[in-house]
């Protein structure tokens, strides 16, 4: 990713607003941007979603194909999560192999979904050691304005819930959902000077000291975390972020579930 320089005066404005619990776009520090989404938009995918979080816009497609299990997990399906940050989505993105940012996003989204136990991998086994369902979850960023972690996780979870696959026991019958029930979600915090805020925009990410993404399951338990950027957090930041994430994921989950 090419560096983008944020003017000093803009930084100061954001610092000042933060001390007043507000931001450039009028949100409070712990408030998400407007969330819109639809599912089932890609006919060639088993499941799909298009989601926008403020100016960040993402399409996720789920393809489910029959494949061979890993030798060390012969009776489990496979989840492969990919993310590409293509030059289409932001002038700072470059073509070619996935950047380390793209890899980090894919791995953090994957970890949240995988560790939550959302997908019953054993039920994706068709014939042990030979045939399992392989789930390819591909994240395509159309427009980047910060907080890809949360947007991609929400879009991914929506697309997985939207997915339908062949019923192995009744191949002529109706397609069936994946063996999933829960809705793991993440909340991403950034620390700018001494303020902690959620759902950062591109500009906020660029001037932030540290970033923390927390993945929560339906119970509000922690399933994955990832600190990023070259600044630091303190102990209290981390603890407080847990509580905030718990609260916010309950809210986000309700919004996603109400409109599947």
């Amino acid at each position, binding site marked *: 990713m090419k560096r983008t320089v944020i003017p000093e005066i803009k930084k100061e404005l954001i610092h000042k607003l933060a001390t007043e619990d507000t931001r450039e776009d009028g949100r409070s520090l712990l408030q998400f941007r407007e969330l819109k989404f639809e599912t089932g*938009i*890609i*006919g*060639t*995918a088993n499941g*799909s979603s298009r989601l926008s979080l403020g*100016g960040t*816009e993402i*399409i996720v*497609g*789920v*393809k489910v*194909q029959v494949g061979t299990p890993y030798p060390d997990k012969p009776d489990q399906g496979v989840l492969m999560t*990919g993310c*590409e940050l*293509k*030059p*289409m*989505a*932001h*002038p700072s993105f*470059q*073509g070619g*192999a*996935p950047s380390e940012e793209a890899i980090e996003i894919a791995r953090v989204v994957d970890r949240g979904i995988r560790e939550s136990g959302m997908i019953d991998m054993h039920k994706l086994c068709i014939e042990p050691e030979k045939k399992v369902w392989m789930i*390819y979850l*591909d994240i*395509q960023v*159309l*427009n*980047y*304005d910060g907080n890809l972690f949360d947007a991609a996780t929400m879009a991914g979870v929506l697309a997985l819930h939207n997915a339908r696959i062949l019923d192995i026991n009744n191949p002529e019958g109706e397609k069936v959902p994946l063996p999933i029930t829960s809705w793991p979600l993440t909340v991403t915090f950034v620390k700018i000077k001494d303020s902690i805020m959620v759902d950062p925009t591109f500009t906020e990410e660029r001037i932030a000291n540290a970033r923390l993404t927390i993945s929560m399951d339906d119970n509000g338990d922690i399933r994955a975390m990832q600190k990023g950027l070259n600044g630091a957090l303190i102990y209290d930041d981390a603890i407080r972020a847990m509580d905030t994430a718990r609260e916010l994921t309950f809210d986000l989950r309700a919004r996603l579930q109400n409109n599947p």
Partner: protein
Amino acid sequence: MNEKIRLINDDGLRVDGRKPDELRPIKIEAGVLDNADGSAYVEWGNNKVIAAVYGPREVQPKYLQNSAKAIVQVNYNMAAFSGDDRIRPGPNRRATEISKITAEALENVILTNQFPRTSIDVFIEILEADAGTRCAGLTAASVAVADAGIPMIDLVPSCAAGKADDQVVLDVGKLEDNIGQADLPVAYVPRTGEIVLLQMDGHLTRDEFEKALNMAIEACKDIHALQQEALKSRYSPQKEGGDAE
């Protein structure tokens, strides 16, 4: 060619109910992405295509710079989930060829000599593929270039004709593409009457070719109108502020 499936029925209609010279439904929207300098979204049958344009901007890598004009770089890509099987990310030979001919088609109409030493970068993402993605991609791309405010001689509509059950048909569909007899993608510039993209594979006699080419050119004129409409609706005052209502 599969002999058992009939692509045209006794009433002269095609498997999706279209007449031989009928286009699939096409929807074009300009200005759909915030960051790109220009963008467009095209739905064409079940094809779903998004195009984004950045530029004129600095050339990367630098040695590609041309001191006389802007270079046009196109990246055509099928999203991993856009086809019947999952598509491995990264370039492949087919995408490389389509990117090349799409760039060549756009270079015909963009006034590249107004922007020496720069690059006009066009990204075409096929979100869902349903035969005819290169035509849909080029159609979207030229709207996106216009949306970016880059001066062009004209928009570039593109459409394929082909052959199915020994009959020349317009806008080849997925099944027709798979088991039909020919595919002839064309891009035509109405203002100059020029053909800027022309490919074929399959089997056409000289007469069939002439008929197919004419059919594709006529369709391009219709698509051109849809492109203009999309741009007009994007920049009409009613849409911008709503204050005229």
